[in-house]
């Protein structure tokens, strides 16, 4: 069986598992939304201020709270299940790809949900919807792969995974924020798209190439 088929099977069942748990929809999206709600309580509710900081705050929330999506319960299989997959000969790269893909889809859902909340609360000027349709998945993919790698090296361990992800995700944050600002100002954003794409490619390669090592280290 090819790695892709294995990944596809695992992805399907992971998404089914998450659908039943509902952790992202019922917990993480509301959590991110609450963050966007309390920020104006701290910085002020002036309309022009909120309109200017809204997109930036959005990306910060996506980064910090998106980590929670990648560390959800359904992303970490119990040790016995993991052992069973190892004995079945499931390629570790397939497991990484499936977990990262599931996290990416759920992060995209999170971005859209929290994005709608931000537009309502902050009323920013949003331009370049077409480009944003590219930026959102690139960000989701990068955060998902980072979170999956962090989850693997920490074996799903508590606060350590977010600490590993957050500073490494800063290039993703900067790329997304600069691209959004560039779209608003009408300046070129191609370099930021390339930054996001480059980070995604590097993380994908790193995740696939180190998957076997990380699987050994979890036993």
């Amino acid at each position, binding site marked *: 069986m090819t790695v892709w088929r294995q990944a596809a099977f695992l992805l399907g*069942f992971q998404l089914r598992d998450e659908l039943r748990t509902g952790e992202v929809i019922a917990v993480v999206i509301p959590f991110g939304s609450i963050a966007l709600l309390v920020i104006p309580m701290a910085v002020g509710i002036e309309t022009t201020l909120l309109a200017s900081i809204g997109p930036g705050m959005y990306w910060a929330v996506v980064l910090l709270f998106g980590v929670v999506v990648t560390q959800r319960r359904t992303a970490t299989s119990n040790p016995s299940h993991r052992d069973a997959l190892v004995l079945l000969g499931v390629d570790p790269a397939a497991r990484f790809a499936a977990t990262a893909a599931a996290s990416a889809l759920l992060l995209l859902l999170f971005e859209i949900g929290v994005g709608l909340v931000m537009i309502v609360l902050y009323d920013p000027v949003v331009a370049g919807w077409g480009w944003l349709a590219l930026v959102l998945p690139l960000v989701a993919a990068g955060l998902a792969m980072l979170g999956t790698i962090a989850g693997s090296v920490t074996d799903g361990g508590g606060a350590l995974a977010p600490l590993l992800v957050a500073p490494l995700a800063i290039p993703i944050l900067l790329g997304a924020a600069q691209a959004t600002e560039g779209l608003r100002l009408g300046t070129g954003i191609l370099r930021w798209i390339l930054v996001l794409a480059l980070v995604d490619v590097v993380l994908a390669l790193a995740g696939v190439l180190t998957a076997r090592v990380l699987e050994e280290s979890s036993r």
Partner: protein
Amino acid sequence: MVGGESSTTGDGNKSQFAIRNSQFARWRQVCSCRQRAAGSGKPDLFLPAAGGPLLLTLAAMPEDPIVAVEGIAVRRPGALILRDVSLQVLPGEAVGLFGANGSGKTTLLRVLATLTRPSSGGGTVLGAPLGTDAVERVRPRIALVAHDPALVANLTLGENLRLLALLAGRRVDDAARALEAVGLSGASGRRAAVCSNGMRRRAEFARVMLAEPDLLLLDEAHVGLDPAAGDLVARIVESVTGRGGGVVLVSHERERVGSLIDRSLTLADGRITEPGR
């Protein structure tokens, strides 16, 4: 022991001939059990395809040991788990492993399953040298039933088995057959999280049936099983050994497993201290 004769050499170990003899006797018994099962109409995933031969010949018996390890030590930071374990499991043999709590039985099973690398020592499992990449070739032929079931809590029993069947290259229907064989077809739609320990343990045996292993490792197999399901353990052990595979069975219940095993070993002070019977 099930049927057969035994003779021992001066050092208390069975001779190869004696082991072969008892294994052939076991085959004859397994084959007759299979004939009865085929006649009863009950599904058995270890049955050959319809019309295939039921009687296996001695010449088809694999020659190399299923497990042959020597000097195995496992060390964790600040703790020595296994000191010097040497163990052999021959084709068609079921070995019982006993020992006190904390003696390292589960760790030894994980070493034999190639899931834990020994700190020192070596040997082969299904012909693959331990601690090398070669073990990846033989892993699909190994099944481990551990303390905790290998089930995803929020998936149903049926979904769990279907996932494992697909990853094992089996048909999706085989998952349903396996659940039926262990008496769980009626609970196929129930989430694993709400099933009892015994039900989850039965689902584990369904998983073993899908794997059709040549080396079966059972860690406290009877825990949580009712008497009817206890017979299931015997059938699975006989199925594996009858096909020339090996079984290592960890248990605290010597009386319950005594009839299933050919030899019993005890793990103490990080070593196997009672080879043979």
